[in-house]
């Protein structure tokens, strides 16, 4: 079932490979069908998921695969390395509370992505092949429970992204694409070394051999004393944690490793921005929760304060930068940085409230930012500009669009009743409850105001007031004196058309519904989060060492 959801897109990609490039519509439909099938499976998984099973680690003495669900564990590679013992790599996938949400999110965003890719006209075939490859890689990252497998998916992600930005991107796309590629690769090559180091330091309690299984790595009693990353080699463990953290932080992206994001977003086509902000960023924090923290809990605890500070910097710094932007998309990009800061802060809280908030924020940010970028794309399609000052008074002429923008914008600034609020609230609750991060939390709340500031300001400049003199559209009066606007060389529907609505309305509904009653998602997290917090608790660590 999981394998199906992971590899469906690639199958679609192969089918597309067979379709002649001229058959654009068929290609699109094939991808859409794959994405929808993915969505259906995701929903089925969600229905069958048992929220009481925590996952995270294999309970000592319990089953070797821990309380993960939908597990598929097939031996993949088994090499005899003589003195190093057999090198076993497994095709080992499964879900727990942390990954299930991300799987749902990925499925959702993939559908949205395909829909919003409908307008792509250039090299449709290549585009959708890469797109499907990308979505397989993302999905794979979230379900992989074998570090090797995870790494493979993680790296596979880079290349399609590079081309999707580089070929279908904006004017400065070359720079943005290679920057993204180099940046993320720089982060992940260290991961390779750490992965190998971990392999030599961890022993699977069942087979007694070294293993790449993240489940085995997550329980500290499986580490060999004297191994390079064994419990007693503090220095290397610290270094490993830091480089791993940087690797993930680049994806998040965390200040000061964030500068690839605005470029990438500004250049990327709308669907890719949606994927990038909606799913890829989550991989960073997901990696932290799945790999970085459980594998080096003691370092994590030593570093809580630093992580929190970086989270706060992200929140406020991102908000300020967003405040100064003239390009709407860039503003949204910086808002992503700011919002991922909440995730970091929540992770730094190291208690259930914070972690829960962080994970829930990951999901909500996915849906909300997807909405934001789609809405930016809508106006860009029509006006061919994203300069915030080139509009004004749009609310009078595009009421539906304005309405959805209002929903998205307010969701993004954390208005109660919309999903963003709950996650941010829990992040703060957690961060404040933990004495370590309390001062940081007290500073970070400023983000609430500045977040509201840049969002409301842009809202006002674009939608309220009257048409600006240098606006990107003409004002026309019809016979009975009603005013209408007309965008240059845009002859589609002025307000949102059916396709755009089918993308945006479901997201809006989700945002509102999860804002009113979050348990459908949150209920799946709590068990895993509580388990994770217990695993990371200092007592648990000291118990092992």
């Amino acid at each position, binding site marked *: 079932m999981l394998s199906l959801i992971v590899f469906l897109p690639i199958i679609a990609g192969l089918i597309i490979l067979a379709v002649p490039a001229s058959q654009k519509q068929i290609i699109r439909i094939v991808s859409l069908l794959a994405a929808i099938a993915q969505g259906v499976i995701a929903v089925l998984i969600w229905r069958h998921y048992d929220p009481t099973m925590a996952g995270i680690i294999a309970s000592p003495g319990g089953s070797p695969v821990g309380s993960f669900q939908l597990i598929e564990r097939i031996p993949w590679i088994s090499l005899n390395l003589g003195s190093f013992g057999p090198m076993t790599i497994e095709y080992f996938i499964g879900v727990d509370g942390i990954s299930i949400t991300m799987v749902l999110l990925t499925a959702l965003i993939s559908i949205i992505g395909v829909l919003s890719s409908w307008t792509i006209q250039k090299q449709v075939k290549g585009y959708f092949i890469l797109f499907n490859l990308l979505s397989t890689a993302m999905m794979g990252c979230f379900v992989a429970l074998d570090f090797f497998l995870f790494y493979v998916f993680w790296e596979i992600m880079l290349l399609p992204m590079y081309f999707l930005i580089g070929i279908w991107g904006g004017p400065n796309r070359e720079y943005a694409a290679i920057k993204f590629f180099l940046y993320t690769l720089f982060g992940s090559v260290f991961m390779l070394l750490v992965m190998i180091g971990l392999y030599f330091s961890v022993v699977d309690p069942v087979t007694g051999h070294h293993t790449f299984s993240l489940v085995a790595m997550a329980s500290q009693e499986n580490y060999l004393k004297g191994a390079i990353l064994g419990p007693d080699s503090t220095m290397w463990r610290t270094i490993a944690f830091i480089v791993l953290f940087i690797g993930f932080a680049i994806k998040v992206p965390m200040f000061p490793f964030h500068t690839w994001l605005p470029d990438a977003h500004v250049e990327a086509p709308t669907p890719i921005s949606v994927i990038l902000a909606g799913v890829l960023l989550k991989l960073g924090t997901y990696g932290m929760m799945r790999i970085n923290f459980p594998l080096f809990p003691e370092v994590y605890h030593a570093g809580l304060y630093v992580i929190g500070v970086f989270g706060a910097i992200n929140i406020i710094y991102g908000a300020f930068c967003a405040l100064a932007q003239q390009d709407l998309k860039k503003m949204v990009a910086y808002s992503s940085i700011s919002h991922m800061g909440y995730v970091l802060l929540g992770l730094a809280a190291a208690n259930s409230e914070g972690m829960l908030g962080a994970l829930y924020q990951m999901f909500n940010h996915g849906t909300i930012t997807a909405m934001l970028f789609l809405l930016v794309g809508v106006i860009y399609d029509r006006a061919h500009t994203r300069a915030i000052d080139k509009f004004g*008074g749009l609310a009078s002429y595009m009421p539906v669009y304005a309405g959805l923008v209002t929903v998205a914008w307010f969701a993004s600034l954390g208005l109660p009743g919309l999903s963003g609020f709950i996650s941010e*609230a829990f992040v703060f609750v957690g961060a404040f409850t933990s004495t370590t991060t309390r001062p940081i939390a007290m500073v970070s709340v400023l983000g*609430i105001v500045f977040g509201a500031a840049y969002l409301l300001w842009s809202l006002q400049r674009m939608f309220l007031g009257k048409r600006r003199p240098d606006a990107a559209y003409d004002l026309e009066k019809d016979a009975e004196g009603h005013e209408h606007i007309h965008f240059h060389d845009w002859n589609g529907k002025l307000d949102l058309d059916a396709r755009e609505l089918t993308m945006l309305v479901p997201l809006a509904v989700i945002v509102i519904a999860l804002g009113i009653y979050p348990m459908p998602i949150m209920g799946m997290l709590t068990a895993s989060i509580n388990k994770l917090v217990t695993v990371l608790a200092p007592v648990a660590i000291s118990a092992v060492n």
Partner: protein
Amino acid sequence: MMHSLIQLSIVVLLLPLLSFVVLIFFNRRLPRMGDFVGVGMLGTAFAISAYIFWTVIVQHYDPAYRIAWNFTWLDLGNVPGVGPLQVKMGIVIDNLTAIMLAMVTLISLLVHLYSTGYMAGDKNYGRFFAYLGIFTFSMLGIVLSDTLLSIYIFWELVGLSSYLLIGFYFEKDSAADAQKKAFLTNRVGDIGMWLGILILYSQFHTFGYQEIFQNIAAGKFNLSNGWLTAAGILLFFGCVGKSAQFPLHIWLPDAMEGPTPVSALIHAATMVAAGVYFVGRIFVILTPDALHYIAFIGAATAFMSATIAITQHDIKRVLAYSTVSQLGYMVMGLGVGAYSAALFHLLTHAFFKACLFLGSGAIIHAMHHEQDMRWMGGLRKNMPWTFATFSIATLALAGLPLTSGFMSKDAILAAALGFANVEGGGVFYLIPVLGFASALMTAFYMGRQVWLVFFGESRTHLKPAEAHHDEHGHDDAHGHDDHGHDDHGAHHGVHEVGWIMRAPLVVLATLSVFIVFSPDPLDGAKGWFMHLVPTPSTVVKSAEAPKTAALAATGGILLAEASNDAEHATVSATPAAAPEHGAAAEAHGPVFSDPRQAELAHAAHANHFTAIYLSSGMVAFGIGLALVVYAFGAIDPEKTAQAIRPLYLYSFNKWYWDEIYDATVIRGSMLIARALAWFDTNIVDGIVNGVATTFRKFAFLNAGFDKYVVDGAVNFTAFFVQTSGAVMRKIQTGKVQTYLVMVMVAVLGYFAVYLVQLMK
């Protein structure tokens, strides 16, 4: 099975939301843009809350009446270190809630009715009622909610609806600015409130009022007392934002950009009062220090905005500042411990201020959207009904005896005096002094307003063409509805508004009379309100109280309240109220276990009559002054203004708060924003690119390796060879050979190094 009143209250809560949902989606499809939906829903809601009011207030008539119900909103499972943890949402119905419920639904209903006349013909007519709906929903939510989290949620939601309604005419930049300003200013306050909530949650892992109160009373608050004070003050910050207290008062006057009914409903009667209501809810956890802080803020606000109101020309602005000032009274009242007096003032103020705003709305409507009092006058003949109701409300606001306003304001002032006595510090006398001073000014500017608007002759023709702007052009905030400007001719076409707009005025005016609240026009404490909403005893152990006593008393309450179980509501009497029951007639408020509170209550009672005399005197003097200046023209306001121009300008420009904030906060943060953005693109990113370029440069060096370094090495080798022997004098080199030279250099170089090592 939940209590029937709870079910009813839930219905009341949801009806306006339903109206919002229906109207926001379908208003264009419905006849009359569906205003009847809004009115109908509100009518029903009011009917139900009236029933609740009847049951709770009239039938039970019990100061300690309280039923609560809550449900698990979020289940966090078995949280490590805490145990099973749920986030609950709840509804509480006690006397205060019942009263607020009735008040909010009533005013909202009246405003709905009024708007059907006032907003008629607006192109977004339907949307207006939708917004009113969501506002009413959020407001009721605040009133009903039983936990800090839920109140915070609705708190933000009223913020949203206020944002939407202020910006109802969003085509106007001034409106767009105002709505943004309002939301952001409120957010600043909310930060404080949120932090306060966080402090409390971090200690008790719950948002519920009762659990928090119990835990604090049980001394489970592990942080220092300073933190508790901080929590109180921070929570109060929410009120500072919502209720437009100094220093966050700046948004309320601008909020008058909204349609006048909105000003009446949101920015006079209900939402702005929510702050006071919230402080009332958390009153028991406020430490004395926190209370002092609150008292001073309140007094300062009351005084400051009164001074500003004196010089404003815009009729709505005068009322807006008077609102701020009255809210200051309430906050001050809470600060000095006059809990029930403050809330009483909240209630009375709601009615007469709503009446005043709707009246001004009627005037503006009749004057074709003229809001500047300088160009009005003589309207009493044209609009008798409006005149009558408006004057009654004015008197109530000024606080003349026989009005509701008198009773409540007097109670607060008395408490203030008593407070000053008790605290016994010179500086504490500032509070009553400021209070009385603003009472005086209130009387004055209200007198001025009534005279300018209703008496004398029409001055419409005096209006200069460019009169939009005076000294600072701050009052270009004419409520341009869709109709746009009409000609500012004489009073042709100025006539009384229709019944649908007149009726609410009448109702509200009637509710501004003393008899509604108390049989004794001079003592509100004899009224039902102050009996049913007694000052609760604090749960904060103050130093001088013997620990055991405090514990016993509070413990008593707690046992009682602890028994308010989630599912079935119970009614219990606080030990404070019990001995009081029979002797409700001369209500000195309940006897307090906490000595400080008891002393305050006593002092307030002692100063009752002093306060009456003083305040009546002040009011009389104020109105008299107004008459002297404007009726008899004994003093020319213009000349006086010129005489004290700096003071005048200072007041006229609202103490320059907007300018100050603009210069500091707004510009400051924009500056930081630009700086950081620059930093981001040039420094942070620059470093990255820098690394890249250095690599490329390095690469260039290497790419030119053969060209430069190798040749250099060759030259070096040449030198080396020359010194070796004369035979090797002439050296000629070609590329491939220089490669070989390099190899030799490498080999020999390593060999040399090795030699050196070997020597060691």
